[in-house]
């Protein structure tokens, strides 16, 4: 998979380039020339989502070009950009990654559908992706044109925390399976430990097991 940054000086672009320091040959998957894209990855929370998205793209053995952006809006609110991205970038598939936070999954998926519909977009059907209760696909139509919105919810149910976030996955790799605030624990982890975890994700099996819902979703686009 090739990544195209709509804003090449954005924090996600910088963070993904920095993976090169961990021996990911990330430059091979980053496109610097203007490219047409039909799929866009939207980061609902920011970092370290961006690095994980870079690693997941690095593992996809396809030549598909995918855009990646971090809008100002966060979490479920990020889905309010659906119409804008669809109409301005003319993409056919939007893949959002957001944290579960403290919300039940059903409630979250319902909120996402409501937010999509509030923009005048018709959701013709929606279904969980086979094998994952954290990835839901919404078939959408706007002005007679069909497109797909995919919601990927970060967090691990077996990570003992009241709030589930993408850091659950990373801390589990560090041998930590419980934390009242996983984001804070991740931020305070020593840099070399964080780098070792990110480097361990070079193993395809490790990333598949650590980020099952994300890997499944990336494989479908």
């Amino acid at each position, binding site marked *: 998979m090739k990544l195209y940054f709509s804003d090449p000086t954005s924090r996600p672009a910088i*963070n993904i380039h920095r993976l090169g320091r961990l021996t990911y040959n990330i430059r091979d998957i980053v496109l610097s020339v203007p490219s047409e894209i039909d799929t866009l990855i939207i980061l609902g929370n920011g970092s370290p989502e961006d690095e994980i998205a870079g690693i997941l793209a690095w593992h996809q053995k396809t030549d598909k070009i995918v855009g990646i952006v971090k809008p100002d809006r966060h979490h479920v609110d990020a889905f309010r950009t659906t119409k804008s991205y669809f109409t301005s970038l003319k993409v056919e598939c939007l893949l959002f990654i957001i944290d579960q936070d403290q919300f039940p999954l059903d409630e979250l998926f319902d909120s996402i559908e409501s937010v999509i519909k509030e923009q005048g977009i018709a959701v013709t059907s929606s279904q969980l992706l086979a094998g994952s209760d954290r990835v839901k696909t919404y078939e959408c139509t706007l002005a007679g044109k069909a497109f797909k919105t995919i919601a990927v919810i970060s967090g691990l149910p077996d990570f003992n925390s009241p709030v589930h976030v993408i850091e659950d996955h990373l801390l589990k790799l560090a041998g930590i399976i419980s934390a009242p605030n996983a984001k804070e624990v991740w931020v305070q982890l020593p840099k070399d430990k964080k780098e070792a975890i990110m480097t361990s994700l070079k193993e395809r099996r490790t990333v598949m097991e650590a980020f099952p819902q994300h890997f499944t979703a990336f494989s479908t686009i």
Partner: protein
Amino acid sequence: MRLTTCHYLNVSASISFIKQIDVLASTGIELIKEVEFSNFKGIEKGKIELHPLTILIGSNNAAKSTILEALFLAPNPFRNVPYFIPESQSFPSKAIEPLYYIHRTLDYQGYAFLMYNYTSDNAKITITLDHPDEAGSNQVELNLLKRQQTIFFRSNKSRNRQISIANETMQSFGEVYVNGLSLNIADARVFSEQTLLVSPKLTRPAYEYLKREWASIVNTRVSKRIAKEISKLSPEQYADFTMEPVIGGQLDINAYLEDGRRIRLGDLGEGIQSYLLTRILFEIYQPKVLLWDDIESHLNPRMLITIADWFSDLIKSGHQVIISTHSLELARVIGGVNEEETKICLTSLKNSELQTKLMTLKDLENYKALGVDARTAEALL
């Protein structure tokens, strides 16, 4: 310390100018950690600490370019550099000549601009390396002594000769003139880490140099390798760069596209030209330290991240990079990709004394959150 010839060059041994240089051997990764000034150009006194990647920011007339120019001169103002200035007549140019080219005016030819207020008699640049040399010294001094209409150069590393002027005896390894472009050179060896200055103002002399040395350059295959890299930044696919008479029978450097077409180098985008020239100059000159003035000129955001990646490679391989910019976006991108090695240095002149403040990217962001633009925050100094 022993003398060796060009042991640090791997791709361009055939390039004639480099054969002439003796280089004082350096061992391991040595960086310039500080440069101190006395009466040099607009700086009466002051010093600045340097890091693997130092980004100089500050207002106009804040001594950013002067710092880079001093670092360019320090290894020896009379060494060969990959530029050619037709009016100077020496090929290739000596390091001091591109500085004249940058500061030349319509009517004036000479080197008075090197001295503080144009009138100071003694100027000094001292660079401090982070490792001592074999003689146990980690400082390289460059003294500029103006007597009558002559500026004499002396260094603690040079082979000086004795010159008598009026009633005074001078030690000097080279001289330039307050009025006139002649150079007298007694020692052209490189005294410390080799530096290369890149500036939008030096595009023409760089291009003229490449034209004259093209046969040597193209045979190193540097041009082909860089063409491939440049292709990643452009919708056009470049196979190589060639020297051909495409228009009007005159030889020009052309981008040779994979579909067989040629585009003159001068007709490529300014950003591509700037990056291309810098990459080629770096490859053929192989400096330890890259100095890039006004780096943001003509650079598109996509180019910034490519340059940030290139700087990562340079720093990893033991090079040092010192750049100046007015763009906080550039500082954020280049510094962000190389966060661990980067220091951002706000510079300013207060009563001609150099003031500096080292900052991290985090500091920049914190200032921004407070509504303070670090580039113009002399109050921080």
